């Protein structure tokens, strides 16, 4: 088992490395091919001649691409000096690049945005897992009943409504119309846990609304599949009470694919819920990268992309390990 985990982690690292190579190449090579100067992109919009020259020097854009990549990679572990004569900048490890636009290391932006994103993602995840999976199980057990049909109709609607729509409607109602949640902004958990939860709740609800619907449908389908399995019939034939049949035999199999999808969803949510963050004005990873894109702040985009990819890769590894723990058939020997 340990070997299996190590192999998975090593595999994940290789994938992350590949992602870093590809994003790096895209950002550094594509402008070159197109004939524009990446230094101009890096320096932000319409910079002065001197600024461009400074950035070119600082970034080492006069050096070969491989060397540039090596500096970038090494910077993650050892930190990096951006050195151009008198203008010295130190980017401490882990250095995911330096945003000249905001005059700070990208890592600083990430660490500022990360708690927001984590708060949003985890809170919503708790909600949609409880609601979505709960409704899914209930629907499957009462298949064809009024409850089932009502739940699935609502779920279908919820899946088709975009987050920015439900988010804006909710904001309009609870924040501006009824003023139950006025002045929504992010408050750090450690500063004021109550305010933290109160301000995040509308966003959690919006995100959970969409995801609950998806998880209800997924859980229901998975549960129905499992309830039709021969081993469920065997469990009943043994004379097990229905709650054991469902709670132990069916649920364990039915939730395995749900957990798989959940791992991946959580991984990508942690990379930033772009629409929700933007709608509610939370500066999480999603909103940070959107702003970086709109201002052409390439180092930030590069850094956040690699960082978000890290979450997805990590989630993948965890899902694989989870599978091996739950299902003896895929357990490595």
């Amino acid at each position: 088992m340990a070997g299996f985990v190590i192999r998975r982690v090593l595999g994940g690292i290789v994938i992350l490395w590949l992602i870093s190579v590809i994003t790096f190449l895209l950002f550094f090579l594509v402008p070159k091919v197109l004939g524009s100067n990446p230094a101009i992109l890096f320096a932000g919009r319409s910079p002065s001649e001197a600024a461009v020259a400074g950035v070119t020097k600082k970034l080492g854009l006069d050096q070969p691409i491989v060397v540039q990549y090596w500096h970038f990679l090494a910077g993650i572990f050892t930190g990096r000096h951006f050195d151009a004569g008198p203008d010295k900048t130190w980017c401490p490890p882990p250095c995911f690049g330096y945003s000249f636009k905001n005059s700070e290391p990208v890592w600083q932006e990430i660490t500022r945005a990360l708690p927001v994103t984590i708060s949003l993602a985890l809170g919503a995840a708790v909600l949609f897992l409880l609601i979505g999976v709960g409704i899914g199980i209930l629907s499957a057990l009462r298949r064809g009943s009024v409850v089932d049909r009502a739940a699935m109709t609502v779920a279908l609607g919820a899946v088709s409504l975009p987050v920015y729509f439900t988010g804006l409607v909710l904001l309009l109602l609870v924040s501006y119309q009824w003023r139950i949640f006025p002045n929504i902004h992010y408050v750090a958990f450690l500063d004021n846990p109550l305010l933290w939860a109160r301000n995040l709740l509308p966003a959690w609800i919006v995100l959970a609304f969409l995801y609950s619907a998806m998880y209800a449908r997924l859980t229901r389908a998975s549960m129905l599949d499992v309830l039709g399995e021969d081993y469920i019939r065997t469990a009943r034939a043994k004379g097990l009470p229905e709650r054991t049949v469902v709670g132990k035999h069916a649920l364990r199999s039915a939730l395995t694919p749900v957990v798989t999808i959940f791992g991946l969803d959580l991984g990508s949510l942690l990379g930033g819920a772009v629409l929700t963050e933007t709608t509610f004005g939370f500066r999480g990873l999603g909103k940070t990268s959107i702003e970086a894109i709109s201002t052409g702040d390439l180092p930030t985009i590069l850094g956040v992309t690699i960082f978000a990819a890290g979450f997805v890769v990590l989630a993948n590894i965890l899902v694989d390990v989870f599978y091996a723990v739950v299902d003896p058939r895929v357990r490595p020997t």
Partner: protein
Amino acid sequence: MTARPEPSAAAGTAAALVDRHYLDVRDLRVTFGTDDGDVRAVNGLSFGLERGRTLGIVGESGSGKSAASLALMGLQRGRRTTVAGEIWLDGENLVTASPERVRSLRGRQMAMIFQDPLSAMHPYFKIGDQIIEAYRVHHDVSKKVAKKRAIELLDRVGIPSAARRVDSYPHEFSGGMRQRAMIAMALSCDPSLLIADEPTTALDVTVQAQILDLLNDLQKEFNSAIIIITHDLGVVAEIADEVLVMYAGNAVEHGPVQEIFSAPQHPYTWGLLSSITRLDRTRSDRLRAVPGNPPSLIAVPDGCPFHPRCQYANLAGPATRTERPTLETVAPGHRVACHLPVEARVRIFREEVAPSL
């Protein structure tokens, strides 16, 4: 065993069962509601079975044999499924008993083994734990005691080094071992009725021989009533004391195994016997196939359900197209549902069917 009500008047065939058996099935009807109409999977089935006896139920897909066995266990599924009639097990009517009562009998007094032992066991749980669970649901004992029982059972059904294999998962067993483990699980509470639904169909022939042998031994040891559902007449000949032939949801012939094979009286039974390839006969050029296909259970033909495929329907008179024949006793313990006159059946079998078998 007391206060058993008289069989309902509607159950005309049940009247033939004067004796009370350990298992008495009377006018059993299982219907699945579907969007296309009602599927009459079992349509008035009646038979009795004693402990220590093995009944082979033979039929093709859609004959209702599996639906009947699931109904016996109270395992019919779906909100649109109805079970009517009577199922008397040791003096208790399971059709009218509460679901909780039937559940408490399931696994303890009546147990079932299934066709595909791989899909019939939960892939996530150890074989031993699945047996332990089956035992503990009906016996208030510690896990340790139950595990000892599980090892004994695995050993009894011929799993080598059972004490070690008890901790294996189903996928680590071969097909034959899994079926042995299923049998061990079914026997964990000494059931008096064991239903085996195609227990050897998914197995190789050499393994099938082992499993049939095991079932034979176990029956002697446990003195249970066994119902074995199969499409394989060879399996029936090997293991059954009595045979019930089902067609389109009903019994067409029921009798002692020797008689069913040596003096069958229903044209469908003849068809089954003469259409199979068999190693114990000289090979013939062509098999005598039953023409046509089994009917849909939504639209079962009027009259005798077999008449559209029956070569002798013309000899049976017009009733065969309009009236459903009932099981009539033709010899002790031998019942046949056919409109052909008995003499004609005996003659046709002797002169036309038997020589080509």
